[in-house]
């Protein structure tokens, strides 16, 4: 047996997660982003520990309505005298779940369909892509109105509505990515060792299509939160008085000229979340992709 001497091992072996983490840690932007995301998640999870929902979040105090930010009310108060800081803080819970769940719905359905279309091709692809076109042609608002009105107004249906409208994009992106990976030799290799198509798709193709999907998903979280706010205008948002950010934004619209802080802070909250998610998403993409490592 030819046993080559193994000199100069290029890199210490690490576990897969360890490897991803190691790469991730080196990316400063990603670390900052994930730190913010962690804080946001923490706030979302424990909002009810810091805040009493009934009194601090939805409790009204008309005497103190429409106050500009001050030491007492950091972000000011709204038209019903509720503290906007508390509402924004508590709203993390709703907005993050709207963003995440909606994107997850879009992701699961879209990626599955996109992968099937890209992998099998032919008539199946044609059917999936045409259906995607059809779904994509129906305005998001209409879709949302119907889903929310047929199923009833609730945060879950809102998530479903926003989620379904993001399906077409995920289908298209996934399909495009799958098409490039499909012809790689390792896909053929897995066929040669007797893998079923399903396993080839889920074990080999999809993991290698992640980066455009991750980028899309993180961007999509932002638009999901913003869509939720658009739906609030139409009265299809999260039921009142839940302080979902989109609802806060739409509620503050009337007051934008005189009490701009009412839209500023929820807007900033969305912006920071979105930026953080994207920084994290970019980092994740880079570290999940071993090829990018130097």
């Amino acid at each position, binding site marked *: 047996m030819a046993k*080559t*001497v*193994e*000199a*100069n091992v*290029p890199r210490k072996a690490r576990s897969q997660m360890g490897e991803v983490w190691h790469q991730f840690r*080196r990316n400063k932007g990603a670390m900052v982003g994930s730190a913010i995301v962690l804080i946001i998640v923490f706030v979302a999870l424990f909002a009810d520990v810091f805040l009493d929902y009934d009194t601090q979040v939805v409790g009204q105090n008309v005497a103190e309505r429409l106050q500009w930010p001050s030491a007492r009310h950091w972000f000011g108060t709204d038209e019903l005298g509720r503290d906007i800081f508390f509402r924004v803080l508590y709203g993390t819970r709703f907005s993050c779940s709207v963003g995440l769940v909606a994107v997850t719905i879009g992701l699961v359905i879209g990626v599955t369909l996109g992968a099937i279309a890209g992998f099998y091709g032919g008539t199946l692809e044609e059917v999936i892509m045409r259906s995607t076109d059809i779904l994509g042609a129906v305005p998001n608002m209409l879709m949302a109105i119907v889903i929310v009105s047929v199923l009833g107004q609730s945060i879950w249906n809102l998530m479903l509505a926003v989620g379904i409208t993001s399906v077409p994009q995920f289908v298209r992106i996934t399909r495009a990515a799958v098409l490039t990976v499909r012809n790689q030799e390792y896909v053929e290799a897995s066929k040669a060792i007797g893998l079923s198509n399903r396993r080839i798709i889920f074990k080999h193709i999809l993991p290698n299509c992640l980066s455009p999907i991750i980028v899309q998903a993180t961007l999509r979280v932002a638009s999901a939160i913003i869509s939720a706010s658009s739906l609030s205008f139409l009265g299809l948002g999260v039921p009142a008085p839940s302080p979902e950010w989109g609802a806060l934004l739409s509620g503050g619209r009337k007051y934008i000229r005189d009490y701009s802080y009412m839209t500023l802070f929820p807007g900033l909250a969305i912006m920071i979340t979105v930026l953080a998610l994207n920084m994290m998403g970019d980092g994740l993409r880079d570290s999940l992709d071993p090829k990018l490592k*130097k």
Partner: protein
Amino acid sequence: MEEQKDMVLEVENLNVKFVMEEETVEAVNNISLHIKKGETLGLVGETGAGKTTTALSIMRLVDSPPGVLECDKLEVCGQDVMGMSITELEHIRGGLVSMIFQDPMTSLNPVFTVGQQIAESLERHEHLNKNDAWKKAEDMLELVGIPRERAIEYPHQFSGGMKQRVIIAIALACSPQLLIADEPTTALDVTIQAQILQLMRELKQKKDTSMIMITHDLGIVAETCDRVAVMYAGKIIEEGNLEEVFNHTLHPYTEGLFNSLPNIKNRRSKLEPIRGLMPDPTNLPRGCAFAPRCNYATDACRERRPELVSFGGTHKAACLAYENPDFHIERGKKNG
């Protein structure tokens, strides 16, 4: 002085590092090269030996960052390339020095016609107007054996061999003094390779261009070069004319290369690969970089870096084993 004038390229102590966040690649270490007018130097070595980096350094085209280039002297036809500004460099590139890249498939811009791509360089360096440049571009195509009508076609309409011809046409368009060919035939089939090598030989003779032929194929070197330099881990470890290096091999690594080649004449001969792998360029051993793989290595080899030493005539090698006057390698024995 007379000799100086004849020198097309002079490189003294070239060092190139790629400095990255976590590690530094020492890609080229202390290389010196001299090429006379009309001469062809073969630069051989395995993947990662630093051949391309050396070539790019001559044109100052190494990506920077991460590349850091240091050099005592870098002159092309007596002009100090190291001290040039970007604009001056842009005049040298494609004018005085040209380069042919390894992969014809990816070296041409897919969205411009081949004519445009040749003419572009003529417009810049020969200061021709659009029409003249185009005519000359068509002439160049004809010179490399492609009908001039095809100047208006796009690269994807050409086969690999023809693309490589186009690249040669681009490189030779402005009659450079020095042509650097970086593995110009690696991506081609043998029959096409034979055509291209033939073409290059002819053109070189016609224009009396000096050339650096970068390759990992010793067969090509044997057929096209006057002198050879063998690179290993960023250093030249053996240098000399063809006869010297092929028939009087000095360095164990060069010997290893020859032994690894399947012999077309003797198919039963057992291949004798070099053990192991090229060292990690971010972490070169303290001593001779080849020592870990060398059958002749001594303790000294692992401690000290050998210098390139002259062995009479133009033949040089960097190997500490020769400090022992009785040392010679197997192949040396064979060939006398």
